[in-house]
């Protein structure tokens, strides 16, 4: 394993955990602010920003 990979791999894993948690939550909650498919696309394709936006604005407190 190259040194670069050794350094970047933990970060990639962290990001994957974040995306996975967001997707699991999205599949479990009944309703979100805005359509669910939109959040799925945002979480999957806009890296960190979409996931953070989902946790901040997508989840409903009720």
């Amino acid at each position: 394993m190259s040194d670069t990979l050794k350094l970047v791999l933990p970060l990639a894993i962290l990001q994957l955990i974040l995306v996975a948690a967001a997707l699991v939550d999205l599949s479990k909650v009944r309703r979100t602010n805005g359509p669910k498919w939109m959040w799925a696309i945002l979480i999957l394709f806009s890296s960190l920003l979409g996931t953070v936006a989902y946790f901040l604005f997508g989840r409903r407190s009720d």
Partner: protein
Amino acid sequence: MSQWMVLYRKEMLGMTRSYKWLWIPVVFILLGVMNPVTTAYMPQLLEANGIAKEVAAAMPVPAAADIMLKTLSQYNTLGLLILALSFMGIVSGERQSGAAVMIHVKPVSHLSLATAKWASMASLALTAFGIGYLATWYYTDILIGSVPPHLIGQSLLLYALWLLFALSAVLMFSSAMDSQAGAAFLALLALAALSLLPSLLGRFMKWSPGRLTGEAGTLLSTGSMASGAWLPIAAALLLTAALIFCSSLFSKRKAGNTGTK
């Protein structure tokens, strides 16, 4: 005390259920670690984007302390934004959902509720900041160069103090206002003013807790603390306590209005 622990644990449970304990620390780690990583691989990144090797090689490599400084200023913008947005409804949200009424059925003092909320916010924010800052230090050490541990420790404490003050401001605005977005906006505005005004009105704003970030930066780059640093430290401690107390007063005043809207 046991009642306070129940309130504190309730807040912590709420933060776990809303995934805050997962995503906020992870985002702080990624946000911080991005700095040493992108700096170290900048020549390769520039080359990949078609910029000549000579230009890329001529780019100055910043000192390790500057990387830590850059991370602190990033926490001060994006980090504070994330914290303010995720805690903006910590008091007003419960008033709107009716949970506040349920809590005050029991003889719970507003002060112990406010301190429990603040303590839970502080636990999460300081954990996220601490892990993120130390992870950044670790990556900087591997990729750029070393920063002495005692400087990391001291700058961490200085910045943690500023964060505690910032959280108390968010808590205060959240209990004073009904609009969550408004509370986040005003808290961020006040924090930005406290950070910016010392450089404009230097003589009158020496006490501003916003100077703590600058003090942490000075500490990192020069290796010693400025002589006037005790003033913002004392002011941050006093104001934090005052804002938590104000928050409990606002909650008390608003408590009469809950459920009638």
